[in-house]
């Protein structure tokens, strides 16, 4: 199993740490994490500065009087030097203030909180659907290794994995929504809807994400299963005369689950990228469409907190998946 975690905190190889090294070992990821965030925030803030146009002009439109543009820019504080704005943004962050959206004049925390919650709902649903499906597919493929069943599952999985979400999303809308009228075309339910209605609205948007992830996870589950089947303890279990179902659930499944879980972190990053497209396609107000909107309207504070949130989520999920993988794997645990 060689899933490469891109962007996760570096794994430290030195075993048997004496106390001081242990402290360093615990501190180092935290320090790196903070440095990463600082770098990211500076890159976004100064990078966004070269975005074309000025926000006052952008908000008031092309035909507005230049005097109005100046007034608005002054009101928004965007006529201050960028370094000053960046420092005041960082200062706000330190005090727990995420700043205010320039375009919408709303606290970023409100906008971000709602968007993040929406995205998490969508992503969670996608995972809830795809993980069991992929495990099932992977285990079945492994048990029927090198038969047509195996090839079909893995072949279709790979083909689906490489399709862009907008292509699959479009076809799903066309067939399931406009054609068969099974699902609504947008992801946003009427205000005040219950949990079930919300869920119903989210199924279709979750499917492109499921499709993209399925092939990859199924492959990993298959590989994990094969490793387990070929391993010594499986042979031992068979020799011990345990029933096949028990073997599969106790040993094989754990081994299939392990790589799957350990790559969830990196896949989460992938998922967030896919969210941008899916949220736009299905008109869903999540973190992806929020960043898209903020970039288009040069709303730097909102853009900044949006991208930072994604960055933090990504780094945390990578770290978390390492931990979870450790808990699941007795070999890792015993160390």
């Amino acid at each position, binding site marked *: 199993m060689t899933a490469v975690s891109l962007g996760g905190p570096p794994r430290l190889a030195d075993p048997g740490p004496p106390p001081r090294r242990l402290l360093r070992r615990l501190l180092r990821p935290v320090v790196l994490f903070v440095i990463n965030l600082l770098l990211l925030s500076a890159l976004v803030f100064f990078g966004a500065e070269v975005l074309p146009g000025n926000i006052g002009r952008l908000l008031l439109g092309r035909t507005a009087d230049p005097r109005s543009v100046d007034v608005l820019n002054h009101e928004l504080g965007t006529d201050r030097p960028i370094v000053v704005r960046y420092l005041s943004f960082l200062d706000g962050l330190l005090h727990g203030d995420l700043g205010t959206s320039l375009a*919408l004049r709303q606290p970023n925390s409100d906008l971000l909180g709602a968007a993040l919650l929406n995205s998490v709902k969508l992503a969670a649903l996608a995972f809830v659907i795809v993980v069991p499906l992929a495990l099932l597919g992977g285990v079945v493929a492994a048990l029927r290794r090198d038969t047509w069943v195996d090839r079909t599952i893995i072949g279709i999985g790979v083909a689906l994995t490489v399709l862009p979400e907008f292509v699959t999303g479009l076809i799903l809308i066309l067939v399931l929504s406009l054609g068969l009228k099974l699902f609504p075309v947008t992801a946003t339910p009427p205000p005040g809807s219950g949990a079930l209605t919300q869920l119903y609205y989210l199924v279709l948007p979750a499917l492109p994400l499921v499709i993209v992830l399925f092939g990859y996870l199924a492959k990993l589950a298959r590989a994990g299963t094969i490793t387990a089947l070929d391993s010594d303890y499986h042979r031992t279990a068979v020799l011990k005369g345990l029933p096949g179902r028990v073997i599969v659930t106790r040993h094989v499944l754990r081994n299939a689950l392990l790589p799957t879980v350990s790559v969830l972190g990196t896949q989460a990053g992938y998922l967030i990228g896919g969210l941008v497209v899916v949220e736009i396609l299905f008109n869903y107000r999540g973190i992806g469409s929020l960043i898209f909107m903020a970039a288009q309207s040069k709303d730097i504070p909102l853009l900044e907190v949006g991208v930072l949130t994604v960055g933090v989520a990504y780094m945390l999920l990578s770290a978390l998946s390492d931990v979870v993988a450790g808990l699941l794997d007795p070999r890792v645990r015993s160390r």
Partner: protein
Amino acid sequence: MLWRVGTRRLDGVRSQVSAAEGHVIDELLAGRLGRREFLRRATVLGMSIPLAGGILAACSGAVPGEAPAGAVGPQQAGGTLRNAVNTPTAAINPVTVADNGGLVTMCQTGEYLAYTDASTGLRPVLAEKWAPDATGKIWTFDIRQGVTFHNGAPLTAADVVATFNRLADPANGSNALSVFKGVLSKGGARAQGNQVVFTLDRPNVNFPYLASSQNYNAIILPASYDPTKYTTDFMGTGPFTFSSYTPGVGAAFVKNPTYWDTSRPPFLDRVELKYYSDLPPQVVALQGNEVDVVSGISYSAGRGLFTDPNFTALYVPSSYTRQLSMRCDQAPFTDPRVRQALALALDRPAALKGLLDDKGDLGDDSPFGPTQPATDKTVPQRAQDLAKAKQLLSAAGLAAGFDATIAAPRVQEIPDLAVTLQNAAKEVGVRLALNIQAPNDYYGNATFGASPWLDSQMSLVDYGHRSVPDVIANASLRSDGVWNAAHYKSPAYDALFDDYTSQLDVQKQKDAVGKMQRLLLDDTPIIVPYFLNWLGATKKSVQGVNLNPTGQLDVSRASIA
């Protein structure tokens, strides 16, 4: 009863109206004003619609009704209407609003002094009537009595004065500043009992338009208006009152049980707006029964709806248009023959058909559109003439053609129009390259030297609907025009334009515009291929939705079965 008067008795009417109104009646009688133009002209001068209708009836026998577009049968009261709306891209604030989504949201509760109706000119709303002085410099508006804001406070002249002075004050970042420039300055409005008196910077016969819904920022707000609290109450006087607003998601409004205009009470119980970041998802949402109405859509986005029997298509003729500017100060466009040749290469009817399926009117290379009252319709329509175009190019020494680049924003069908122009130029041996940019890049700072739109050799741009051509004809073509992307400097045009704006006389205005149209055909600094209809669509069960090409969505008389 006025609408029973005969033609001969119009002289009696004349004695009841002002000199300017009388003049309009004369023009009507002389056959120089069409019915629609008469209505527009008469209402701008403050004549009431029944009076104007009566005069028309006296002349021809028919009274133009005020039937809202799309109303075909008896309308049912109650129900909720769900509208797809562009996500507002800026803070919801009537003073600064510049985007369609914000405007549609605010105009559900907010009202104007007058409403610019697509077919009948100005309809008095919060002003009962208005009249100019003899010069057109001072305008007096009578504010309607008995109107209350949704919090119960009565509408007063002081509220109106505060609204307009707020818009004319450069310190507020007002988006109406460019409209009021040279027309109304801060302090130009004052209250006089129930009346508001506007003292303009210089005479302007079209001022009522600039105080109406045409100037979409001019929503009448309480004198105590606080922009930071607006989204908590959407305080206005309109047929619907605020219910909820969720930024980026949508808004809801409910019927105002105490709406002042008992002659046109709302049918609907509730109006919902759902925000979408782009047009295509709105169309899909209508098809998927997520919403009942889409409006302000492009033909290319909504095309699937217009042929679908499940929906009612709405079209409103407008002066919404595209301009292709050619830099008159840069070779090879310094030679008017070259500019004319390109204009002659374009097959306009085919472009209108192909790009918009004829949902628009042909343009004639001037900003004066067929919906605008002063446009001289006797000016010949330019048509494709490839032989003449080639001949002009030869005469200009460019028989072998030349290379040039069109810069254009990625807005609606404009990239497609650029392709069409590219293909047309190919017919006469001119090789055009395209440089299509995101709108924000393209408009840049919207000032010379910092905007591909204003600086490029050839540039395409969109101009929204205006009931009167003044702003566009001034800014895009006058020598000192701030949007003069063609860098057209013509003393003759400047003089004609000044002549036009100083005229209170209808026929003289029209004469000046006619001369400008002919001059522009000769000089061809810009190519105006067409004027677009303002488009929308509703479900079949919806009636009475009134689209306004200025951008408002009026559902005050809409109903859903």
